[in-house]
């Protein structure tokens, strides 16, 4: 059986399952309690699990992550919400110097099962700081795991798995897809799939559309865009293989290189600026591994080297179907 669910609601359900299965799981952040979060991802959770477990924190991001670390040291499993991508930076030190490094510092004596949820990306017509894609900052940081969901069913599973992980996980959610709807299996929604350990591996990429001519790798909000591009390309007689990366650290190069060895071409798509974005690492790593199989250089489609522009310009800034197809054309022209 399956139920039609939005991405936001799927995450909400996943968090509810996590709170139900382990009394040590906590939710904390700005406006996550009474309001249920500005995107309603934590809607109803404070009502059902109480103010001690679903905590409206003071407005201080470093404080949120820093106290979450302390709670984890005492045996809790906090799930922190950073309200918007652009507001994660005040917590940067706690994230990269403490959360990422404390387990290593302690030679494994300390475990920090902290999840940091970050609604990210653009396309919602917002004011400054509400449309950023800071994932590369965290993927470059050893000690953090970085995953990105793209679809309701996957989101519900992935958030449950992230909470179960004993390592810190930065969990990116594509905010412009929060209202995307899909059928989600009831075994995902009721937690039984994850509980039974039958859910797909969290730290693996997934081929979401098979194809033969060009591999298109994307994650988060760009997975739909890549799939749309693949559909449009199919109409033109071109076969694109679309990979949803799902995890940026670790990065599942095996799935990726297996695909590129078949297609000989790779286009990477993300909203973040391409300069030192995930596409750079994918290009470098895949080229090193598939040097003789690549028929074209890895091409990157992403944001430009500018701050995120004013809302009325974002459609020009963000990769879309046309820009993906343009890169596909260029890859095929090599």
């Amino acid at each position, binding site marked *: 059986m399956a139920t039609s669910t939005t991405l936001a609601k799927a995450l909400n359900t996943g968090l509810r399952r996590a709170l139900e299965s382990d009394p040590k799981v906590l939710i904390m952040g*700005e*406006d996550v*309690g*009474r*309001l*249920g979060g*500005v995107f309603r991802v934590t809607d109803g959770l*404070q*009502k059902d699990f*109480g*103010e001690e477990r679903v905590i*409206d*924190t*003071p*407005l*201080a991001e*470093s*404080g949120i992550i820093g106290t979450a670390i302390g709670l984890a040291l005492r045996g809790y499993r906090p799930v922190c919400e950073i309200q918007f991508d*652009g*507001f994660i*930076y*005040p917590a940067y030190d706690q994230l990269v110097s403490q959360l990422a490094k404390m387990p290593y510092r302690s030679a494994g004596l300390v475990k920090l099962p902290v999840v940091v949820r970050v609604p990210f990306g653009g396309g919602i*017509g*917002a*004011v*400054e*700081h509400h449309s950023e894609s800071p994932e590369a900052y965290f993927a470059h940081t050893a000690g953090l795991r970085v995953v990105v969901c793209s679809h309701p069913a996957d989101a519900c599973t992935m958030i449950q798995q992230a909470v179960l992980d004993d390592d810190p996980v930065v969990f990116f959610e594509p905010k412009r897809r929060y209202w995307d709807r899909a059928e989600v299996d009831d075994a995902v929604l009721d937690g039984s799939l994850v509980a039974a350990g039958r859910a797909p591996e969290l730290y693996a990429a997934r081929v979401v559309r098979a194809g033969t001519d060009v591999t298109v790798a994307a994650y988060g909000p760009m997975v739909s*865009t890549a799939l*749309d591009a693949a559909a*449009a390309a199919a109409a033109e007689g071109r076969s694109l293989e679309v990979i949803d990366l799902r995890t940026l650290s670790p990065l599942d190069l095996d799935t990726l290189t297996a695909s590129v060895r078949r297609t000989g071409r790779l286009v990477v798509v993300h909203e973040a600026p391409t*300069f030192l974005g995930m596409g750079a690492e994918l290009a470098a790593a895949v080229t090193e591994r598939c040097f003789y199989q690549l028929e074209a250089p890895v091409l990157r489609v992403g944001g*430009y*080297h*500018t*701050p995120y*522009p*004013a*809302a*009325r*310009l974002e*459609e*020009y*800034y963000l990769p*879309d*179907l*046309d*820009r993906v*197809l*343009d890169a596909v054309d260029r890859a095929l022209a090599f």
Partner: protein
Amino acid sequence: MPTRRTPGADDTVPAPATADPAGLTNGELVTAAHELGSEPMVQLLSPEGERLTHPDHDWLLEPDELRATYRDLVLVRRLDAEATALQRQGELGLWASLLGQEAAQVGSARAMLPQDHAFPTYREHGVAWCRGVDPLHLLRLFRGTSGGSWDPAVHHLHLYTIVIGAQTLHATGYAMGIQRDGAVGTGDATRDAAVLAYFGDGASSEGDVSEAFVFASVMNAPIVFLCQNNQFAISESNDRQMRVPVYRRSSGFGFPGVRVDGNDVVAVHAVTTSMLDRARRGEGPALIEAFTYRMGAHTTSDDPSRYRTQAEVEQWRQRDPIDRLRRYLDAAGLAGGTFHADLEAEADALADGWRRAVRGMPDPEPATMFDHVHHGPHAQVGADRARFEQYEASFEPAGRAGEGGH
């Protein structure tokens, strides 16, 4: 679920009582027990519009100024209403309403001298108005066509800052610059300057604000921090940010704090004037808490019915900052003749102009998104721009199809 406590004020300002925070009553270490909102506030104009006196703060506004102040209050409220409507009509992407906070903003901004410099959050439309910034600049920002298009150096008003608290450090640095320019404590009224830094009750929790207090104090910088305590940080009421009123925060950093009725424009003006004067004289920083109430939603994206009652809002409507001054003006006979009708007509005309102007606001040229990343040239920006222009040109004249078409 227990109802969230809503910190309020003393009997002149209605609010539910708060529990006594545990442990603050064993008085040998702290001066006294406190309840949020029950602290005295400077007041010069009662909610009923009666003139009051205060031992430390005099009523500074002459009739002409009072009328001008009233005009500002009315016009910024009109701006706010118009912008909210424009957002509903899809002309703006977002609007952060100042409804209820007009007195806190206009009263404080009018206390500034031309050479003083203000650092706003994203809600200080009343301050921008008083600093002579054309509201179209604000509307452009919330429409999504600019990041803030007025010249801060001309208006002595910095751009809006959206990252909570960050501007308090910029303000402190600016005040350190005033010191280094020798523009403090000279006694020359046209030269000595101070900074007015706005922030919210929620912002008081951010590390940046405390660091600004440290720097301001250590440097003895000419700055006044003005916290508009509108009792909410989106959905979170004051008790998620503090256990004692925020005006007390400064004393442990080494400078004075004072609480003023933020819905009393005369008191806000008096207190801000006195703290700015003090700062300009070289006597260092001060903190003002203007205790007020956010009568509207946090922004047009917010639904306050999820976290507060309509009854609470109604209670505060009785304390409306504009009604209060109007009662005084009317009773004192300062707003006779066509004063109100003229003002109404002026507001209508302005609103009409704003509406038309917003509807006609063009989107920026796409390639301008590459402008001003740096002042000088930058290879990657240049390369991205060239690629973009080439790509866009590839669609001419045919145009393009697909979801991304524009």
